[in-house]
């Protein structure tokens, strides 16, 4: 379980950073999206890994903290997902505007001379 999660975070981060450093606007946006998935998994792992344990206690039942998973990281991930979703949408609009104004999808608005 740990190794799967660690590999997933590592691969997503690696691909994300690589794409982030590419010169095309769309690649940058996809890179940021991949990075945000990696970060969300990382946040989840900071609440300690646990399978088959619910994050929400049930009303009226005696509570044994050992039987539950930490709910705070899950709440944090939820917030982070919403925010990164919104900023990705905004960035797509800026991408289109930039494409419309400059006729290129280079991040600097002009092709680099090589």
């Amino acid at each position, binding site marked *: 379980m740990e190794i799967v999660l660690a590999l997933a975070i590592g691969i997503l981060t690696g691909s994300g950073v690589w794409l982030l450093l590419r010169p095309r606007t769309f690649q940058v946006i996809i890179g*940021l999206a991949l990075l*945000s998935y990696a970060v969300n998994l990382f946040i989840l792992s900071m609440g300690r890994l646990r399978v088959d344990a619910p994050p929400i206690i049930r009303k009226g039942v005696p509570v044994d903290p050992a039987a539950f998973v930490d709910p*705070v*990281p899950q709440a944090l991930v939820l*917030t982070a997902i919403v925010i990164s979703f919104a900023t990705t949408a905004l*960035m797509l609009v800026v991408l289109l505007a930039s494409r419309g104004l400059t006729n290129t999808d280079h991040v600097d608005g002009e092709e680099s001379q090589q």
Partner: protein
Amino acid sequence: MTGWLHHLIVLPIVLPMVASAIMLLLSDRFRQGIALGTTALLVAIAAALLMQTMAAGEPWVGSYRLGNWAAPFGIVLVVDRLSAMMLMLTSVLGFTALLYALARWDRAGPRFHVLFLLLLMGLNGAFLTGDIFNLFVFFEIFLAASYGLVLHGSGQERVSAGFHYISINVATSLLFLIGVSMLYGVTGTLNMADLAVRIPNVPPEDVTLLESGASILGIAFLVKAGTWPLGLWLPRTYAAAAPPVAAMFAIMSKVGIYIILRLSMLLFGDEAGMAASFANDWLLIGGMATIAFGTVGILSANTLTGIAGHYILVSSGTLLAAIGTGSERVLAGALFYLVSSTLAISAFYLVVELVQRGSAGEEAVSEPVFEDEYVGAHAVEEDNEIGVAIPATLAIIGGGFAFCALLLSGLPPLSGFIAKFAIIDGLLAQRQTVAPQTWLLIFLILGAGFAALIATMRAGIDMIWTPEDVKTPALDIVEAVPIAILLTICLSLMLWAGPVMSFMEATVSNLDDRAVYSGAVLPEPPAESARP
């Protein structure tokens, strides 16, 4: 604080939120009035909070439970002298920048007022919150609003600079999240006061993880503050933004500084055990490198907005280095410098726009990209019925420019000089023998002021005092008043430097008093909540 007065703490967040929500429902005609009224009210609220923190003779910290959950579990808002002071600064800048924008810039694109109020809401929230994840949420709120404001007015340069700005900030937010979750993983809490209680008890094997988490978090704030080499995006973005927006953005780099100051005093102060002051040397070095870079940038900038942008770097660098020294007297001077330099930069952006309007002429500001886009009513040059044009325009602009130049370069007798004097005085009083890096810092601070003087003088001679084909710009009274307000505040900072300085000293000693902060936020002595 009892009764309804208690709810004053939450108003700086709720008021702009409600006002911007109402604005979306009403027609455009009411927006200017609502926005101006809201920002004026925010100034009044911030003043009331500031009075309250000052009225209590001893260190006073007010807390407000959102949703009425007890502190480590629910989110709290906390107001002390530092946050009240930052609130005051934000609302004054908000009021003046908005007033300035009402003359013409708010019509350069859609939904300016709504975004502006949301920016204020996010900033106020970031200054008030006592929870690091909630801080992230408020950061995202004001960043999202700032993305919209950077693009305000459209045009190729803004869209291109805006794309860089958004990418960098989204990536930075991810670092923020990693840092927050690492702190949570080590300590098991997100509440700042609770963190302050728990960090001294972190077991030795976890201290490295804690420090890494805090450093990653710190990098996120250093990017916002524009520290070298993380702040290369800042001058270009600020130069591309519409002038009133740039004037408001002058406070945004200070949010990063504020958080670094808050967290390093609260979490990593002297009592923090093994992790105490672990980052101070880095802050000092980073701050000095930032001042050096900003100084070179000021000298090499060929536009006035370039000078202003690099001056923001210098000011961030000075503040970071002051935090890095960890001395109370230096910090008190640094807070004075923070207020004075932020006001001066904000005024400078506004004056610069007037100067450039006179010399460079109009450029096409809005170009539609999408078919259904609202094309800015920027061509409303002639139907400026809000203000009356005032005579002797050039003299007023020139005077304002000279005033700003004096403030930025820190020449006597204005407040910029007093602030730098206080910092250097604190640095020299630090120890019996002054360390070499302290001399270097003093040299850099003075050198940056000198560079600002050279650059502003050169630009001023070029653009104002040797007018070749300068057409006198049309100056509205609405545009002159905000600049006058900002400069008057700087003037009063100079006239009442004594009381202001003692307020700053009290603020710093308040910051040093972690027990008061934790006591006000946490419901009872936190013995049972502290983990071994």
